[in-house]
Structures are given as C-alpha cells and as structure tokens.
C-alpha cells in the first residue's frame, strides 16, 4: 500500500485553477520532488498535503485514510507530518535546542528522552555546539540545518520541504542538496520536496514530478526524465535540448535536410503524421571528416554558425546543410572548430526522445 496518495486533487482560487487533477502516489520511504516554474502549483500542492489548504476536488490519503477532501480536512497539527519552509520559519524567540525540542514537547515526551533525541539530531546536522544560540546569531546555512533538525527529530510520517534552499548562496546550496539526500538515506522518511531548481531535484530525489500550469507532465526517476522527456515542456525545462520536428512517412521520419529510419529509434514512433523529438546537445558529436558510422548512427553534414567557450565545454550552434535546422551541440574543450567550418554531425537516434 502506498504511504501517501493524491487522487485527482484540484485547487481553485476564485477564477484561477492552481492545481488541476493532480494524481500521485508515494511509497513508504520514497523521496519525490515536485519540480516546475514558479506559479505551476507545486507549493499549493504541498500546502494541501500539509493540511494548510483544502482541495476543491479530489482526496489526499495517508495510510489508506482520507485526510483531505473538499468536504473537510484533518488540520495540519493532527497529521504528524513536518515541514521545512522557504523562510526556514525558525522561531527567533527560542534557542536552537528549544526550536528542535518543540515538536517533542508537543508530543509530551519525557524530559530526558527529549534531551537525548535533540542531542542526537543536533549531532547529525553538526549543530551541537550551537545548541544555546538564538537564530539571529546563526548563518543562513546553520538556520537551514536547525530547520532540518526540527523537522526530522519528531520522526514525521511525511516530511515536506518547500524550496528550502532558495535563500542560500550557490555553494552552500550545492552542499545542502547532498546533505538532504544523506539524511534521507539515513532516516528513510517519506519526503515531498518542492523546488524550481532541476539540479536540486535530480540530486535529492528518487522520482521527480514535473509540474506545468497546475498539472503533472511527467513523473520519473532523474535519469529517465532527462533521457526520455515525454513532453516538450519537460524536455525544455530539464536541461537544454534541441527540438526536431519531422514527418513520419512510410518506414522513415523526414526531417528538414535529413531522414532517419523508424527502426533506428529506441521508442515506437507512429507511422504517418507530424512527429517531434528532443535531442540533447551532449548526444551529438562533431567530426572534422566523414566519420565511420557506428551501427545505427546517423551522419549529417553541417556548418558551424556560432560558438562559445564556457571553460568546462564548448557550446556550438551548427546549421544542417541545405536546411533551416540549427542544432546546439556541446563538445569537450579540446574539440575546437572554427565558425563557418564544415563539420559532420553524428547523431544516435536511440538517444532521440519521442515527444507526444
């Protein structure tokens, strides 16, 4: 049985539908991210799971019991979840230890037990030495750790995180991503993580639900999501990509300037009608001379139109010969080509993701 199930959940605010027919099931111990641009309804979804908002349609179930529905919802304080807020919401009138102990006091644990648990969790997030400080005396990263400690010390049924890293600077953010994943590997708390940052989602999550305008576009593991985006939105939102529009005719797909046989694709493609593919810039290789084609690869003639050196890699724009198609290609630093140089593009059709 799934731990947490959202069944056809919708939420309307007056005229605006913030969340539209959202369905998702989380297994016990699973870490799922809601990823999408701002305004896509991910925070609304999270607040419905927490019980701060009622859905206007659909139900949310935990351990098989309905906890939210349009008719009424269990208030947040009865859900035994915990949440990490965008602002951290560390109570400034309490010390680090008092913040962390709060949830345990509410659960009426014995004093020595509370102390032991607080100490253990503060060790886990490396804050033991700061236990008697007030939040105003802590750095952003330390406050973030207090928020984490406070949320996990109560051993919540579900842990909710609302853009927890958005207020940190870039380096710290990268460090905290791994920290969050490390804590999850240690504690296995069922987690829902809201973010607009794809790398955060990819580092931390078992599965990612990409949201667009209140709906789920695709739910998949990080690798599948990147390699096999199902919609144009997902392909564009997760990483950079090239969109190739063609027409399926007979046994092949005709693109502007080249064609690829149906059998070469990894996925089934409809026979007939317009079709679209996403092709990642890293999946294309550039060659000076005509390469010996690997099995199933497709060789296309082109010319470099623009280039940029970004240190870690080259960013090329290559025009396909006798065609309007321009592809972005990522190449390693030593693969140097000049603008207006004629090149050969090697494309592996198995890496082209068919987009519905």
């Amino acid at each position, binding site marked *: 049985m799934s731990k947490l199930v959202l069944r056809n959940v919708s939420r309307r605010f007056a005229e605006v539908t913030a969340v539209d027919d959202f369905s998702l099931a989380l297994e016990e111990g699973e870490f799922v991210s809601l990823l999408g641009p701002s305004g896509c309804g991910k925070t609304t979804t999270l607040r419905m799971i927490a019980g*701060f908002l009622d859905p206007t349609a659909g139900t949310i179930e935990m351990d098989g019991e309905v906890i939210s529905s349009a008719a*009424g919802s269990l208030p947040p*304080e009865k859900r035994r979840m915990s949440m990490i807020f965008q*602002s951290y919401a560390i109570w400034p009138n309490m010390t680090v230890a008092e913040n962390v102990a709060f949830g345990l006091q*509410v659960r009426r644990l014995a004093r020595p037990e509370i102390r032991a648990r607080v100490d253990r969790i503060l060790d886990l997030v490396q804050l033991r030495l700061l236990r008697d400080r007030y939040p105003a005396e802590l750095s952003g990263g330390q406050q973030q750790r207090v928020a984490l400690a406070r949320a996990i010390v109560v051993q919540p049924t579900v842990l909710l995180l609302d853009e927890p890293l958005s207020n940190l600077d870039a380096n710290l953010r990268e460090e905290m991503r791994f920290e969050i994943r490390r804590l999850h590997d240690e504690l296995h708390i069922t987690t829902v993580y809201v973010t607009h940052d794809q790398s955060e989602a990819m580092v931390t999550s078992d599965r990612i639900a990409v949201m667009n305008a209140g709906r789920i576009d695709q739910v998949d593991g990080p690798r599948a999501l990147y390699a096999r985006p199902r919609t144009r939105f997902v392909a564009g939102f997760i990483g950079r990509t090239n969109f190739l529009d063609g027409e399926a005719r007979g046994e092949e797909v005709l693109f502007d300037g080249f064609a690829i046989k149906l059998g070469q694709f990894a996925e089934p493609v409809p026979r007939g009608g317009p079709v679209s593919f996403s092709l990642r810039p890293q999946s294309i290789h550039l060659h000076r001379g005509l390469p010996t084609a690997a099995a199933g690869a497709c060789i296309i003639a082109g010319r470099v139109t623009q280039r940029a050196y970004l240190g870690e890699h080259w960013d090329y724009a290559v025009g396909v010969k006798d065609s309007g198609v321009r592809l972005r290609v990522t190449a390693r630093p030593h693969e140097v080509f000049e603008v207006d140089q004629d090149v050969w593009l090697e494309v592996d059709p198995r890496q082209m993701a068919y987009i519905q």
Partner: protein
Amino acid sequence: MPVRETIQTTAVTAATPPGYRRRWRQLDKTVFLWLLLVGVLMLLVINPLARLLLSSVQDGDTGALTLQNYLSAYGRWRYLEALTNSLIVGFAVGVLGTVFGVPMAWAVSRTDMPGKGLVWAAILGTFIVPSYLGAVAWILLAGPNAGWLNRAYISLTGAAAGPFNIYSMPGLVLVIASYSFPYMFVFTRSALDLISTEMEDAAHTLGAGVLRTTLRVTFPLILPAILGAFIVEFLEAIALFGVPALIALPARFQVMTTMLWQFFEFPPKVEVAAAYAMPLLVITVLLFWLQRKIIARKGYVALTGKGGERRPLRLGKWRWPMLGYCLFVTSLSFFLPMLVILQAAFAKAWGRGFSLDNLTLRNLRFVLFDQSATQAATIHTFLYGATASVIALVLALCIAYIVQRRLVPFGNALSFLAMAPFVIPGIVLAIGFYAAYTKPPLLLYGTAWILILAFATRFLPIAYANSDAAIRSVNPELEDAVRILGGSRLMAMRRVVAPLLKRGLAGGFILVFIPATRELSTAIFLYTTGTQVLSVLLFDKSDEGNFEILSSIGLILVLGTVALVLAGFRLVGRDFMLRRDTAA
C-alpha cells in the same frame, strides 16, 4: 501514551463517514472568535452610532420619528453662530499651525540649524502637555491684567494695562494652534525626509536657483503632506472641548463643542445634542476622506520611497535666527506654559511670583493625599486608562490577526469597524455612548465601564494600527511551523506570536494609555460623581479659580505621561511617538 491515542482517534474519525463529531473536529473554531469580535464591535462602535442617529430623529419622550430636533438645533441664531465660530477657529488654527510647523520641519529636516535636539525635545514636550492644561497655563500667562505677560509689559513700559487678553477668539486660536502644530511638523518632516538632495540637485543642474527649486520642486512634493496636516489640525480644532470651554466661555462666545455641552446641562437634551452633532460627524468623515485622497495621490512617488543622498542646506548667518524662531514657537507651546504651571503648582499663591518663600508642597500633597476626590480621580485616571488600553489592544490584536491571516470571510468589515472611531470626534462618540447606554437593557451610565469602554473605542484605531503593523512583521510560516509539528493555533499564538509581539505591543499599549489618561471630551459627558478622572476634575475646578490646585493636577498628569513616554523609549525606541502613522 497520548501520542498513540491521537493516532487512534485520527484513524477512527477518518474511517467514519462525515458525522457531527468529525464536522466539529474539522470546523475552524475561529468562527466563534469572529462572532465574538463582531458582537464587541457592535457594542462599541455600531450601537452608539446607530443610537446617535436614531436619537437625532426621535422625540425624547414618545420615541416617535420627528425632525423637530434638527429644527431646535439649528433654529436659533446663537446655535448657528457657534457652528460658524467652530469653522473659523478650525481654519485659523490650520493656518497658524502651518506657519508654526512648516518652517520648523524644514529647518530640522533640511538645514544645518543648531540645537535640533532641543527643538525635537520641545516638540515632544508639546505632545505631552494636554491642550486643556496649556489653556490653563495661558490663562496664567495672558489673562487680562494679572497674566504674567501683561505684568511684564506693564513693568517694562509703565502702561496702565497689558495688551494681552487670552479670553478672545485670537487667544483661543493661539492656544489650540500651539498644541496642534506638532501634527504639521511631523507630517511635513516625514515628507521632507523622503526627498533626496539629488532631486533638488537635478533642478540646480538645469539652472534653477535655490528659491526656484524650493518653490517648483520641494514645495510641490511636500504639499500633500501639508494639506493633510492642515485637515488634521482643522478637525482637531473643531472637535476640541477643553480649550474652548476654558477660554471661549469666559470670553462669552460659543463653539460647537461648548454648545453641545450646554445641551447636556440639566435637563439634558440628548436628542437635540445628537442632531447638533451631525455636522461635526459629517465634516470629519468627509475631510478625512479628502485627506486620504490627497495623501494617497499618485505621482508623488518621492513620498513612498527612501531618497538617495541628503545634504543639509547651509543657512549661514540665518542659522541662529532660524533656531530663534523654533524656540519662539516652542516657548508658546511648551517652555512658557510649563514654567508657569510648575510655578503655580509649587506656589502658595501664584501671583506672588518666583521667590523661595512662596514655595510649598501643600498643593501637591492636597491633591494626592488630603482630598479624597482628587485622590480617587488620580487612581481612576490610571486605572480606567490602563483597562481601556488593554481592552482596545486585545480587541485590535484579535481583529488584526484574523484579518491578516484571512481566517474568516468579510475580515475587512472588521478592520473597517476597528478604524471607524478614528473619524468620530470624541465628543460625538460620547453623545452616542450616552444615547446608547443610559437606558436599559444595557445601563452602563453611572458605572466606570461606560468611561472605560468609551476610551477603548476612541483609541481603538491607534491600537489597531499598531497591532496590524506588529502582526504584519510576523511571517505566517512561523505559525505554520508550529501547527505542522502538532501545535494548535492557540499554541502558536502563545509560544511564538505573543513573545514576538511583546515589544511592539508594549509600545502600542503606551500609545493608547497616554491619550486615555488625559481624555476630556469623552469623559466630560459620561462621568458621574463616583467616576471622576483627573481631566474632568481639572475642568470642574477651573470654575473655582484655584490655579495652584489646577496646576498640581496638571503636573501629575504630565509626570505620569512622561514616565510612560520614557518607558516607551526604552521599549520601542526614540521615535515611537512621532511616527507618522501613529501620530495622527
């Protein structure tokens, strides 16, 4: 184990189909709080106003609908003349207040005038002196013949009589303006503080001189603030009771508020008073609406953002004359009045002047300990003031909280009602309370509660503005964090919101407490012999002409206020009384 129990109840309720118990559990209990608040606001705001309106169109004995009250209220030339006098006083006070306040604000905000701290302190002092005490002081200063200024004039010139007579229309205007110009100062100064020197520099680089820049750039930018303050001063002047009662009545002319007072002389004609109070209410509401419009006008962007670099203007040889002007104005409002009040409070007979053998503590001892009436009044003043402040603040806090957190529909109606008393002159509110609570079913007249509730209502807007600002400063996620960890909304209030608001609310409490301890115009209509407060006592005693006792009572009030203000400084910071949002 309690934790286990919670889970089980959860499971049971979730499993049962929606029943009463589940509905009750899921019902947001804040609805009841909302109903309670609506009830209290009905009692404090709506009922008195409704009764006021109703009384004005009712026959006093039969209760039948009639327009007779309006005919009685406006049927006599005397009554109309009082209305005209009020408007003249209001306008003149506005003009004089502008002449007093604007140059001072400019000097303090934009120039290198010396002694700014002293000027600032004197203006704060002016806020602290109740205007009716100022009137008493001015009687000592410029009473015909015996007033200090007249005596000084006679001894200097050898003339037979002094030129000053406070018992006159100009005297009345001078005293009121002396105590309302701080509004002009505060409004104008905050507007000036927001104009960056860069804005004026921009005009200079385009070839404009200092005068041209001041007239074309600076002045238009602060004009809305000046107009807004003018309106506040006008309204303050026409709603004031104490000063006109002390000065206009002996001078044998009437203004609206003294006229209303006379309608209450035995037998009280409440219905006529209600009808007569209507223009005061209507003018106030309209002018506040106008003031809002002026202040909120778009295009004066400079007034909303912090300006850039600011350099004081060098006054050169005009530095000292400018300071002289500031000290002249504050002498009228603060230094001279406090001097004569202190002298009279510690004098055996104030006319005998400043000498050591004239010094005595008898007056203060008499007021504080010997006479039970004054002793009781002192206790009442601070007790009623404190109770009213607590009521106003708790009410305001609850309203501000549920409005901000959008816990109930129609929250805006609540905040509107909480702010409504702002546009009701104290004297009108008092008549409303009188009309509403002198008859059963709710007979409060004669008890302390009618005073306490009227004070609480009168200063509810101050409490609300403060609570609203305080709650805005608390991120709702702090409360969400309590709830998701298993605490109730109440626990969030107790453990997080309340501790965070403590300081801000202490400041709010003082800001309500200070005016509540000196409120006269409401109290004068609602007190009875057992519920006198110091302001009323001071007014009552003014008939006897015992200025030593009057000054002692006034001094006690002032000292009480000073103690509160100092407490406010410590808690909230130096500018807490002169902030614009709370000063009005």
